[in-house]
């Protein structure tokens, strides 16, 4: 079955630097992949969706890449701010024809002022 791997260790960076988070998957390449942000005690909030034919997607300070050869997505936050501190979840469908999403365990980002 499809497995999602996200770094379980927190990423600790200085304000103003670029944060890069990794999402690896193990089996087939999904038709799309999504990233969510989750703050403590809150539900996840959708950030970006990238399709398999898109190498890169941007939204303001966020950038997502999707490499189907490496079976990997990278999530970048440029000019990071303390307010970006949260857990970031990667999600993708478990099958080519599936409409449900499975989630990684997330990576916690801490941005120091």
């Amino acid at each position: 079955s499809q497995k999602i791997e996200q770094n379980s260790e927190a990423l600790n960076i200085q304000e103003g630097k670029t944060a890069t988070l990794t999402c690896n998957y193990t089996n087939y390449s999904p038709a799309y992949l999504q990233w969510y942000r989750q703050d403590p005690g809150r539900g996840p909030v959708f950030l970006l969706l990238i399709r398999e034919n898109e190498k890169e997607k941007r939204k303001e300070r966020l950038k997502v890449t999707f490499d189907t050869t490496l079976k990997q997505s990278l999530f970048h936050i440029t000019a990071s701010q303390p307010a970006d501190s949260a857990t970031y979840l990667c999600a993708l469908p478990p099958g080519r024809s599936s409409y449900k999403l499975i989630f990684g365990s997330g990576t916690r980002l801490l941005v120091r002022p």
Partner: protein
Amino acid sequence: EAGVVQSPRYKIIEKKQPVAFWCNPISGHNTLYWYLQNLGQGPELLIRYENEEAVDDSQLPKDRFSAERLKGVDSTLKIQPAELGDSAVYLCASSYRDPGELFFGEGSRLTVL
């Protein structure tokens, strides 16, 4: 536009007691999901509805969990009887298209003593 509304936000019960969670999705969203999230983990799908039909309940422990979505709008998730291992956050989400982003509620945090 109102988001996904869940209640109660917090619930503490003793083991073997029943508990129910309620979810009101965003108006017009035909697809509704119930996810379970343990501490430090990503959300895990319990059940997915298309309108009032449960199209994917393979992950729902049917011996003690039940769900319904009457009239294809609000949904209720019930646990009877609750066990210690059921302590978690129960998240409801809705979406209006596939594939598309999920809109999550704030979750219902269950503690079973």
